[in-house]
Every structure is written in C-alpha cells, then in structure tokens.
C-alpha cells in the first residue's frame, strides 16, 4: 500500500496558478488542494490536514501574511512557502523572519518549487 501522500494547500486568487501548480505538485508526489482565498482555506478541513501551504502574498480581503498571523494565533504551526508577483526583498525578508520556509518570486521554475518543498519538509519529520 502506498503511504498517504502529503497534502499541500495552494492558496492563490489567480486561477491560472490554481490550475497549473497542483499538476506540478502531483508530479513530485504530493497531493494538492487549491483555495481561491484565505477565508476559504480557513473554513476547510485542510487547515488541520495540510502539511504545507503554498501561499500567495497579495490577495483581496485576507492577505498571505494575514493568514500567517491568524494561523499563529490559532497555534496551527503550518509550514508556509510564500509566492509573490512582486519581486521585492523588502517584502520577502520580514516574511522569512516571521517563520516562512521560503518566499518565491513569480515566475519561478518547478525545480525552485521542488527545492523549497524539500527544504520545508526536511524541517519537520513525520
């Protein structure tokens, strides 16, 4: 029997990203669920089942960093890989300081994403 695949939650308001990333993730052996907003994610059981989040920084209503804060408040220590279309180190560094595993600038390669996921999952053993 195959071990259960680790669940990765992709949270991005961009449909194109939501369509393309799960395909890549399953290629690397992950299960993926997509959410178009932070609220949608929080309302789902993925909050407890996900191993890692691929989280967009800039989203309407609740932004990526807002969700990071909210999860911290709920003591849900999820691994987070931020992705952002704004190539700005001034945004990236504070996110890393607050515990994010990585912050990738869009567009990034599958390889870069894979390396980030490896790094993330190494930090926590199941």
């Amino acid at each position, binding site marked *: 029997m195959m071990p259960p695949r680790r669940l990765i939650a992709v949270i991005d308001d*961009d449909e194109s990203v939501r369509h*393309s990333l799960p*395909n*890549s993730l399953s290629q690397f052996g992950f299960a993926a669920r997509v959410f178009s907003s932070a609220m949608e994610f929080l309302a789902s059981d993925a909050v407890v089942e996900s191993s890692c989040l691929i989280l967009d920084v800039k989203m309407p209503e609740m932004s990526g960093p807002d969700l990071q804060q909210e999860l911290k408040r709920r003591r849900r220590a999820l691994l987070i890989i931020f*992705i952002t279309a704004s190539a700005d180190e001034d945004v990236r560094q504070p996110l890393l300081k607050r515990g994010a595993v990585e912050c990738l*600038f*869009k*567009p990034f390669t599958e390889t870069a994403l894979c390396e980030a996921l490896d790094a993330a999952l190494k930090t926590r053993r199941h």
Partner: protein
Amino acid sequence: MISYPDANADVSLNRALPVALASLESIVRTEELRTRPRRPVEYGKETAALAALVKALADSPRTILQTLTDKILEVLQSDSAGLSLLTKDEKSFYWPAVSGVWKPHLRGCAPRDFSPCGDVLDRGAPMFFRHTELRYPYFWSALELPAEVLLVPFYLNGKTVGTVWAVNHDDSHQFDGEDLRLLESMARFASAAYQAVESIEELRSEVTAREEAERGLRELTGTLEAQVRARTEQLRLSEAFLAQAQHLSRTGSYSWRVATNEITWSKQLYRIYELDPSVPVTLELIRSRTHPEDLPSFYDAIDRTRTGAHHYEYERRLKMPDNSLKYIHVVAHGALDKEGRLEYIGAVQDVTERRLSEQALDMARSELTRMARVTSLGALTASIAHEVNQPLLGIVTNASTCLRMLAADPPNIEGAQETAQFLLSDGHRAADVIKHLRSLFSKSSTTMELLDLSEATQEVVTLSLNELQRNRAIVLTACDQELPPVLGDRVQLQQVILNLLLNASEAMKGIDDRPRQVLIRTYLDEDENVRLTVQDAGVGLEPSEMERLFESFYTTKSDGMGIGLSISRSIIERHHGCIWAAPNSRGPGATFSFAIPPAAEDAMNSLDPDALRPCTAAAASAGNL
C-alpha cells in the same frame, strides 16, 4: 576818501633852516586885517562859488576839496589857496588840495605843533599872518614865500581837523575883512560838503554793496535759473525715462478725481487698453474694455472707491475689440488732497504674458506629472509587476505540465490541450499588460509636428530638475540652438528624454567618489541626423548587457521592470530613428543616445505655418481663455 601819505615825502616842507625864529606875535596880524578898509560885500561871487561847489558836489564829489581851493583862489583873487588836514596820528598836517602858485606843494606836509595851521587849531579861530617864514623857516623852501597868509579853521562834526587858507605872495594885493568872511563861509560850506561827500561815499559804498548784493543776487538768480533749467531737463529726462520704463514694464499709471470723475491716463495705459490717447477717459470706456465676467468686481470696486480713501490691489481681465484677452494687475491708492477731495493714483501693469506663461508652465507641469507617473519605474513596477508576473508563472508551470502530459505513455492529449488553453490565455494576459502599458505611454492619438529637439530637451531638463537634484545629480546641457527641426510627437520624445535622464540619475545613486554628473547634448551628427546623448557617471554597463538593454523586461536594476528602455526604443523607431547605449570611452558611466532624421523639406512646406509651434502650451491655452 583822503589818503594820508608818508610824512617823509619829498615835497615835505618840514626841513629846519639855521635862522633865528621870530615870535608868533610878531607875525600874527589878525587885528590889523579887521581894521583894513573893507571892500563891498561880494554876495554874487560868494553865491556863484557856493553854487559851483554844490555842482562839484553833485558831479564829482571826490574832487570837492580841489574845487573848494580853486574857488577860493578865484573868489579871493589870492595867489595860492589850500586845505590842510590833520593826519590820523595828529602829528602833522597834510595838504589834500592846493591851488594857485603853491599847487606843486599838493600833498605836502607841515608839523602840527609848529605851523600857522597848528596855531589856528590852538586858538580855534581864524588867523592872519604876514611872512610866516620868519617864524616857520621851512617856508623858505616853498616855491614862493608867503607875504600874507589868511587861515580859518576847518571843522568836521564839531571838531577842528584842519584849516582852509589863502596866500598872497606879494603885497600887490592885500587881504581884507571881506576875504575873511568869504573864506569862513566857503570853509563852513566845505565842512558841510565834506561830510556830505563822506555820507555820499558811505552811500556809494552802500550802493556798491547793494549793487554787489544785486550782482550776487543776479548770479544767484542765474544759478537758480540754470538749476531750474537743469531740473527741468532732468524732469523731462525722468519723464522720458518714466515713459520708457512704463513702456518696458508694460505699466501705465492713472489719476482719478472721484467727485468729478476726472480721469488722467499715462500714454502707456492708453497703449494697454489699446485706446487713442486723444479720447477722454471715462468709466464707461473702461467698462467697455473690461471682461464681462469681471464686471461685477469692476462695479464693486467703483462702489467701494467712492466710500473713501483705500488701498487696492487686484487683477482683472480685459477683453479687446478683437476678442483677445489681457490680464492687468492694478495697484491703486486713494488720498484726500488739500481741499479734501478724494483722488486715486494707480498703476496698471499688463501681466498677460506672465499669466499665459504661468498657465503654460502649469500645463507643462501637469504634462510632466503625467509623464513622470507613466515613466517612473518605481511606480510602474508596483502597479504592473503583479499583472505581468502572474501570467508568467502560469505560462512557466503550465508549459512544464503540458510537456509532461505529452511525454507520458500514453500521452495525456486531453490534459495537454486543457493546459495549453491556460497557457494561451496566460500569454494573452501578458500581452494585454504590455498593450495597456503602451497605451499609457502614447496619447490617444499621436500628434506629429515640427519641433526643435533642443528646445524639447531644455523643457524636460527644466521641469525635471527638482527630481534630479533630489538624487544630487548635476545636469549639464550642451544643446545646439541651430538644429534642423524634426517631425515627431513632442510628448513621446520628451518621455524618452525623461526616461534616459531618470535612468542616468538612477545609475549614479550609489556613486559618492565622483560628481554625479549628467551631460545632455543635442547636435547634428555625422550622418546629418539629429542626435541626443545622455552621458552619466554611474555604475556603467557590461558589454554583454548592451544587446539586451532595450528588450522588454530586461533590467539591470534591483527594482526595475525593464520597460522604460523598450518603450523608448519603440518610440524612437516610430520616429525612424535608432537608440543605443555604450560604456563611456573615458571614465566610468554610460552614454545613451538616440538619433532621428531631420524633417524632410517638403514636410516643412506641407505643414500649416501655425503648426510649427502648436506644441507650446501657451498658444494652446491662450485660445481657450
């Protein structure tokens, strides 16, 4: 009036001779004179003599004393006659007037204390001597010896100051009592005359003084007149200056007597209002030139003016008969004159050009703001980075997925097709972003006009100076003022220039070991193209970068998008020109250049002459005023 000579003059009789001197009594014969038979009183002669003296007094007062002795000689028919006056030191007598035989002794001298004259003074009365040489030996040296000498005192102001005398040198004619009476009479008259002459002299000196004063006054008047003439000339000049100054500063002046509505205008004010200076100015006339929209304020100002003396400063528009507009700046000051009448004095300056250029500047500024907003890569990055990167991520990942699906065994054709759809739409999204950007950069319609690139460059430099100075960049310009015009879109070309300028400034941001200097040049290059170069002292370029610099999304900056130069290239190419970059041949930094061909001759001819400068915002805005 009488000068006293030196007592040792040559003609002096004051020389002693070695002879035994007779006593005074032995020579004085006054009593004998009185007892001599007396000839009849000769009033006629006396009157004639006195008349002559009066005439002399009137005609030539300076010679009155000489006239006196002449008349004595004549009336008494003596041989000699004379006048002796005490010198100032009262030590001797001086003979200021002598007539007859002794005339050569004129201005001679005799001692005060040893002379017949002295004896007369001592006694204070007339005396008659015979042969005075017997007691007073100096008479021996006289031209002729005196046989008889008749002397009477000569008074001035009640004081005896001398004697008047007559001398007969032989006994052929002897003095009698009538001679004494005549001599006394004439001496009295002479005293009076002498005093009169002195008064006249005083008067004369007074007159002279007055004449002097008058002459001084005349000179003063002359000077004053000259000064008045000079001042008048100065005034005329300053009026001319004023007129010129009014003309140059486009400032006219006016005065307005409020009660009588008497209005006086300077020539320049007539010129500003474009009115004939011969036309009397009325409020109605002024109203007729006032812009309709400014009439309420015009009436309001007049109403307030009538309430008293105020100080005003306001701006108003005039509407000329040809519907052109003028802006005037008015400063007026009200005051009451001596009679308590209210009068306003005012200055009116034509500030039309200033207003128009301010409006043009405002428009240019807002135009620049628009340009800056569009070209400022910082703002641009923030607003569009997200929009471009988003589809790019989709393209990258979907392309990978697509490839994988096709490579699978069996290939997932359906999945690949679906993924390719996303790929396609992401591609369109990215293209839309670029399309949107391009439309931001170009106005809805491009306006091609003949323009002077140097002038366009100067405008950009002027308006972006603040921004450049904030980066501590020093901008040097070397613009050829004789460039042939180019046919182009002014705003787009200025966007390119601004982009190059801001890039140059950006490239020097971290430079602190050398001046952050930007040199902008415009010139006609060797290919007869109009060229602009922007040379900075910044970080410079790698040779490998040269090719890619003008590609979209290629950037050497950490926060750059790589859009500015690619758009610049498309603008320059639209102008049939080319744009390139090169490292500076000497020193650090890079030089960005573009060159565009000058407008063809026929382009100039085919354009409406007005189109030669439609670019100036001033002209455009003036039409809308």
